[in-house]
């Protein structure tokens, strides 16, 4: 069950999308999200869907991987769709029922919006290694250092967290097995009972996480870690021609979406 966590998952590959600089991809995702929220008509949604599909094709990411990631969001998607369907004023589909044609159209657009939003961010995390992602983020947020925002500390915390996800998952599995061997029951009982059964897992997990953190800190200091000052990098990020082309295309896409919004298409 714990193996299914998709957070921070990365599918290595060698496509044009994989080769783009992480900074470019971060900016593109930002532009994409803004553009997505400009869509207010069928043409607009059609354009965004087409662009998303094109990016998926270019990155060789299989649709089933996207669906897998969407699964946990299913409840929210269905709920939003239902609420929109019933709470929008307009012509009723069946007289006497609070379900309207306008509501139906709006729910479909809402579903599209959420699905496209998630798909876009997945395309980023699926095609960018966590290290590259945090490196890109640190460089993009660099100007904030002038405002005394601890950018380096935040990004190193992020990359450490990502590094320890598999280790902690393994550990949780081990503790669960140990508790099961002693007769613990995690699968049956009411919700409150099951939640209580998780306590004997969480306590040892936290204790060991703190011990790990302590050892890790000593190990990092031993390897001369002293914050972001004066640090160099093995892999230097450089914007190539393809990055500039991608950025220009991204801006054009956003501009196009704003124009479409003007005409409410």
């Amino acid at each position, binding site marked *: 069950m714990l193996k299914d966590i998709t957070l921070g998952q990365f599918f290595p590959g060698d496509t044009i999308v994989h080769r783009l600089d992480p900074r470019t991809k971060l900016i593109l995702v930002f532009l994409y999200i803004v553009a997505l929220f400009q869509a207010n008509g069928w043409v607009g949604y059609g354009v965004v869907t087409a662009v998303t599909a094109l990016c998926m094709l270019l990155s060789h990411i299989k649709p089933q991987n996207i669906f897998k990631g969407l699964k946990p969001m299913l409840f929210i998607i269905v709920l939003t769709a239902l609420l929109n369907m019933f709470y929008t004023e307009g012509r009723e589909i069946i007289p006497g029922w609070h379900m309207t044609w306008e509501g139906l159209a709006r729910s479909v657009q809402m579903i599209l919006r959420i699905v496209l939003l998630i798909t876009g961010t997945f395309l980023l995390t699926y095609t960018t290694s*966590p290290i590259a992602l945090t490196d890109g983020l640190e460089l993009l947020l660099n100007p904030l250092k002038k405002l005394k925002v601890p950018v380096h500390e935040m990004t190193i915390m992020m990359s450490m967290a990502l590094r320890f996800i598999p*280790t902690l998952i393994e550990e949780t599995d081990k503790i669960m097995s140990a508790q099961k061997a002693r007769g613990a029951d995690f699968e049956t009982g009411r919700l409150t009972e099951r939640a209580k059964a998780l306590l004997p897992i969480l306590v040892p997990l936290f204790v060991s996480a703190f011990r790990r953190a302590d050892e890790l800190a000593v*190990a990092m200091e031993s*390897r001369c870690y002293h914050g972001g000052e004066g640090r160099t990098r093995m892999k230097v990020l450089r914007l190539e021609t393809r990055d500039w082309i991608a950025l220009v295309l991204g801006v054009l896409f956003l501009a196009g979406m704003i124009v479409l919004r003007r005409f409410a298409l």
Partner: protein
Amino acid sequence: MSIISFKQVHYTYPGDELESLCGVDLEIEEGSFVAVLGHNGSGKSTLAKHMNAILVPDSGEVIIDGISSRDEDKTFEIRRRVGMVFQNPDNQLVANVVEDDVAFAPENLGVPSAEIRTRVDEALRQVGMYEYRTHAPHLLSGGQKQRVAIAGVIAMQPKIIVLDEPTAMLDPQGREEVVSTVTRLCREKGMTVVLITHHMEECIGADKLVIMSNGYIHAVGTPREIFSDIEMMAREGLAVPETTKLLYELHNLGYAVPLDALEEDACAAAVAGAVKQ
């Protein structure tokens, strides 16, 4: 010339009543392979942590390559000279990719990018992990992870490597991988290696063996000298290598065998000689 020297070092952990190090004097020569042996709680890890200024003595002095660990401004200088490898490989690897982890120390030192690349490749080749450079560390075996940790230290180009029970969590094969790697680094690259352990077999190849007990240094000598004093080892609750045990039993039965033949070949030759007589 000694590269690390301990002078009357006393240390008590905050909140503890018992001293963990009670007046330790120790000299470690440059380029030598020193093994420190002792049972749990004997102070051997505390000793190791004094070697790169993670701990600073309460009284006495530790001098590393001419720098006192008391000098707080020089802590960084000490740490770039002394690489530390710890017991749990999972808790000392910082990156999701092997080569990024090895690059961590040189990145901290501000080494130019191109040189980091060559250092990382070189370090990974030296520990035999170059083919795994793009793997995720959590998918490697214990011995492999520990060799990556050693590579991460070599990339810093230290003069000294201190390994604090690096084999405690490994299977016999992983132990062999780690010990042969550090032995080679010492013999071929001239690095000073300090190996803290409680496995006798890992000490046989050392130049100098230090036995620690209750915060004191109990004995210092070559492995041959130390292991042939079987009564002392038994008093300390430390096992001796199988070869020494065999020769000791034979000796007690009246056979004329030397007690200091540690390696299996030497031991076999000694036994064969005794049988011929």
